[in-house]
Structures are given as C-alpha cells and as structure tokens.
C-alpha cells in the first residue's frame, strides 16, 4: 500500500435495529459514490462490502437504535474506535419507529409477532445512540437526506462542522414558495415543530408534514397541540399518533404526545 493510500481517512458504517434505508443512501449517491470511495477508505460497511479494515476509524456513521443487550455493548466499542461518530437517521438519533415499544409491554409485543416468544431476546426499549455514548453530530430524517449526508461526509473530511440548519420545515416551505397547508387548507401539519432537511417535501406534494425528521430545535409542542385541537378539531388520540410515529422517543415529541393525551 502506498503512503498516499494509507493516509486516506477511514469511514465505517454500522448497523443497529433499522430498515437499512439510511445506509442505502450512501449507495444511492450515484453521482458521488466513486468520488467518495476515492477520497476515503470505506473500511467497514457490511451492506456494501465483504472487506473489513480494522479500526480505529476517522468517521463512523451509525444507523439504527439500541434494542438488545449485545448492541448496548457494541456501541461503546464503536465509540472507542471512532474519532468522529455521526448518527444517521431517526432510529440512531431518536430510537426510530421501533421505539413505539417504549410505550407498551414488550412481552405482549413478542407474543403477537412470534409463536414461541422464548426464542426472542430483546430489550424493553429502543433508544438512540446519545443515550449510550457521546455523539458528535446527529443527522435526522426517516430516511436521511442524501444531500445532507454528502455534506456531513465532506464537512468531516474538511475538518469543519456540517452546515445543516436546525430550523423548522415551515422555513423550507417559505423558501420554496409552497402555500401553507395549515393555513390555506386547515389541515394539521407538523411542519412548525419538525426539523428541516427534507426541503419541505410533503407539503410540496399537497400532504401535511408527518414529522419524519423529528423535532426542530426548541419546538413549541404546547402551542401546536392547542392550535390543532382547538382550531382544527384534531382529537387527542390522533394527535398522540402524530407525535408517536417515527420519532416517538425524541424528548420534545414525547412531551407533545403527553400533552395530546390530555386533550379530550
């Protein structure tokens, strides 16, 4: 191996409980993939390659949430081997849709899906990586945005923070010039409390935002619950479902669901 090749930063992609969609985003960077592979050494990425290069790694991208005892230990080992650790997507950042178990009895869940629950070993909760280790940057979305992924990889290669805004989806609608669904159609849209990054995709398809990027920085869940329940007639039950879908375990959405439970 030449000196130059050895000097390339090492990227590792790790999987926990997830759908594989966020790591697939790496392979979906069709225009950038071979360039990325040229700039960095893809050292560990089981979905894409059989080759494994030993750590330490310069950048670890972590997909999925912690749902087993083994995974709880594994993330600590990955942290020890990683200079920079970035979570990719709602599962690693907020526990993902499988965090719906956090609000139910897992034994009952296991018996619904599996005829012989005694064969299954799993934790009672699905938790984000930040509950277990220090995370350097959290990339949101279910799934993540390809554009933001390329930005995160480029930023860490250049030694700077990723230029990713924590504003709401509403700001993206304004920039695109999409007419507000909440105001013009009176439909409950999660845009005001949801983290930007999708370029306000759903409203541009004439569909209210359903919060797949999780909470924006400092969302006003209380006001959202009041607005949608009092002015738009949303039932408490429907509001709870809105908050408890892909980012149910994110603290701000947890709070929103609890407030919604108080709505008659």
């Amino acid at each position, binding site marked *: 191996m030449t000196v130059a090749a050895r000097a390339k930063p090492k990227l590792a992609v790790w999987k926990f409980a997830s759908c594989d969609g*966020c790591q697939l985003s790496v392979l979906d960077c069709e225009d950038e993939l*071979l360039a990325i592979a040229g700039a960095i050494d893809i050292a560990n990425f089981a979905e*894409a390659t059989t080759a494994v290069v030993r750590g330490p790694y310069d950048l670890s991208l972590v997909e999925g949430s912690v749902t087993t005892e083994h995974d709880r230990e594994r993330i600590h080992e990955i942290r020890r081997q990683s200079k920079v650790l970035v979570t990719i997507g709602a599962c690693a950042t907020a526990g993902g849709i499988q965090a719906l178990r956090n609000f139910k009895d897992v034994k009952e869940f296991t018996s619904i*899906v599996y005829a012989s629950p005694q*064969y299954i070993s799993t934790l009672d909760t699905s938790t984000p990586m930040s509950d277990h280790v220090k995370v350097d940057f959290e990339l949101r979305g279910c*799934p993540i945005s390809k554009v933001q992924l390329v930005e995160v990889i480029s930023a860490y290669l250049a030694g700077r923070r990723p230029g990713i805004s924590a504003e709401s989806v509403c700001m993206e609608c304004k920039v695109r010039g999409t007419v507000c669904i909440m105001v013009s159609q009176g439909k409950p849209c999660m845009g005001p409390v949801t983290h930007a990054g999708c370029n306000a995709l759903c409203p541009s398809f*004439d569909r209210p935002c359903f919060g797949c990027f999780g909470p924006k920085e400092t969302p006003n869940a209380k006001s959202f619950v009041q607005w949608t329940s009092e002015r738009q007639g949303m039932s408490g039950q429907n509001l709870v479902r809105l908050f408890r*879908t892909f980012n149910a375990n994110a603290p701000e959405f947890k709070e929103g669901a609890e407030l919604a439970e108080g709505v008659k």
Partner: protein
Amino acid sequence: MATRKIDVETITRVEGEGALRLKVRDGQLEDVQLNIYEPPRFFEAFLRGRSYTEPPDITARICGICPVAYQMSSCHAIEAACGVKVGEPIRTIRRLLYCGEWIESHVLHVAFLHAPDFLGYMDAIRMAADHGAVVQLALKMKKTGNKLVTIVGGREIHPINVRVGGFYKAPSKKDLRALLDPLKEAADGAEAMLRWAKPLDYPDFDRPYELVCVKHPDEYPFNEGRVVSTGGIDIDPSQYDDVFEERHVEHSNALHSVVKARGHYLTGPLARFVLCYDQLTPRAKAAAAAAGLTPAVRNPFLTIMIRCVETLYAIEEAIRIIEAYEEPDRPYEDVPPRAGKGYGCTEAPRGMLCHHYTLDSDGTILDAEIIPPTSQNLASMEDDIRAFAGPRLGLPDAELAMKCEHAIRNHDPCISCATHFLKLEVDRQ
C-alpha cells in the same frame, strides 16, 4: 472422530444482519441454519390500534430497499378490507412506481451485491477498478430507477406520496416525459448488462423448488393477480391462510413460511420468470433467449441474468406507461373504513410480499400480519446450502464460506424485512 468448525459471523452484501452455521460430523453435513440476529422490531404489534390510513407510511419503514412493495401490499390489503377496488388511472401509476423500485433494487443487487461473487471481489467499488464500465452503467441505471421513484413517490427511500386509495398528488406529465430518454438508454443498458453477465461462471445447480408468485393474465406481475405455483396452487390472495402458514424456529428472529401440504417453497425473480414468462415483452423474451434462459430454468445462480431481464421489462413497461400518461383529475379514490379482513399480495423485487389486516368499523387496525419474501425463502435457502455445501466440504473453510454466501445472495435476501438475516458459521466435528 474428525471434527471441523467454520464460522461466517456476518454475511455481507445483504440487507440486514444474519449468520450461517454449518455443522459437519465425520465429513458429512449434519445441519444448516440461517441464523437471523437482526433484532425484532415488532411492526405487527404496534400496528394494532393505529389507523387504517397509516400502514403505507409505517410498513415502508420495515425495509429501506423495497419500501414501495410495503406501500403497495398494505394499500391493496386495506382497500380489500374496505371493499374498494381502485381502478384506472391509479392502478397504472402504482405500476409505474413499482417499475422504479424494481429497476433500482435489481440493478443494485446485480452489480453491487451479486456480481462481485462471480468475479471474486469484495465489493463493487473494488470491482470497478477492473470492470469500471459495468459499474458506471449500473450507477446510471440505478439513478434512473431512483429518479422514477422520486418523481412518482416524492423520494427514493420511504416515498411520501402513497396513500390508501391512491396518491396525494399525481406526477406531472412533463416530469415523467423527461425520463423517457434516460429510460430508453437504460433499456439498452439492461441488455448490455445481461450480455456482460452471460459468460460468468455458473455452477450446475438445478433445484426442485416449488416456485410461487403472483400471476396476472395480461401483465407481468406487480400489484394484482392470483397466487400460483409450479406445484398447482392457484388461489385468490384472500385464500392465503388456507394454503400457507408461518412457523417460528428457534435459531431465527425471522419466521419461516411453508406450503401447508408440502413444505418449503421459493418466491422471487426465478418464480416470476418461470410462471409468468408469457407476460414478458417481446424484447425481454428475446434478451432472455439470447442469454439461454427459458422457462425450464431452475438454477438460482442464474437469477443475476433473470434480474437483468426483469429490469429490461420494468424499463419497457415504464416507457409504455409514460408515453400514454395523462394526468388524472383526482389522484386517489375515497376508501371509507368498514369492519373486515383484507389480503394484499404484491411482487417486491425479491419476491412476493403479503399483508393481511383486520379492521374495526372505524378503521382501527385490530390485527396485522406481514409475510415478507425473505421469510418465505429462508427454508429454501437452507435447503440450497445443504445441497450446495455437501459436495464441496473438501474446500478450505474460507472458500467454502465464500461459496455459501454466494448461494445465499442468489436470493437477494432482505434480512431487515425477514425480522419482523446473515453471519456463516461451520461447525466441523
């Protein structure tokens, strides 16, 4: 007593996590287990109590590789439960969306996950150093498939435009027509990829599968049709429980599906090609014939070529649909809830995906059952390894492990789906 133990801890280039364990006693293969350690995510459990409008978004999250399949099977099952049959033009737009997913998923598997096995590379990026043209071609074709999913569905992974009854917004004629040139180029690309794959080294390995798929009288199957098999099954999807069942085995977080009367079966591209050959386009048939593929094919290693044929079909079908496309007045039909049970079986790129929902009168989901293609194929994949590894036990452990992984990747397993999969471990004693 001669003892030998081989471990493949993580089967790579598959979606999700699993391991393969082989037990060899006195030079004889004693046991094969595909061990699914991808942790369970309990979708069927948390769907209970949710609204009938939610499964297209929620079940998409089972799999980032084939979310469209989940969206289509859930919509069809829920619409069946509500007694609504969605007609034209929505059914054609659904077919178009499925074409996009088949193109991107098949090309990903052919070039990135499967081809490196035949040529002895660790991955497509390393393969690109010697086979740059085919990797570049694949990236371009995959991009076109993803672009189609994005235009119709909003984004390539977990599309947002699908709803029970149809779509939130109809794709624009202008956006779709812009895809015609890249699709026409991709059709030539699919033929080129098939010509590239033909001279690869294929082991003689015909298997006695019972092949199962959805079959439609006039179309190669995506969304609609009867469930048929080479063993004589010919049922409406609603009769699914009469013929199939799921069994839970100890070594796996995935359930195994079987034909009640006979046992193991196989779903996926091989099944569709064999059972629905007549519904392929003349150009796809000609490409298959040039590659030496006929409906008599039973060798799972040849699925790399069948995926190229199906990719060509999906591209041609997309072109046909786009050329005739007119924007509908309303992109969805109303689906009022009612109490009942509905069944939906559609063809994901890697095989048949069945959803069943039981609804309350207000649309609350009382029960959900999801049977992904990989759990239907698991038992047949274990059978394949038994038959394939048996005569090859003389190989060194590392080589045997690599060949077994190849035999598993023939079926493009999606382990994320199956846990509702892979590591190779050979235990030689």
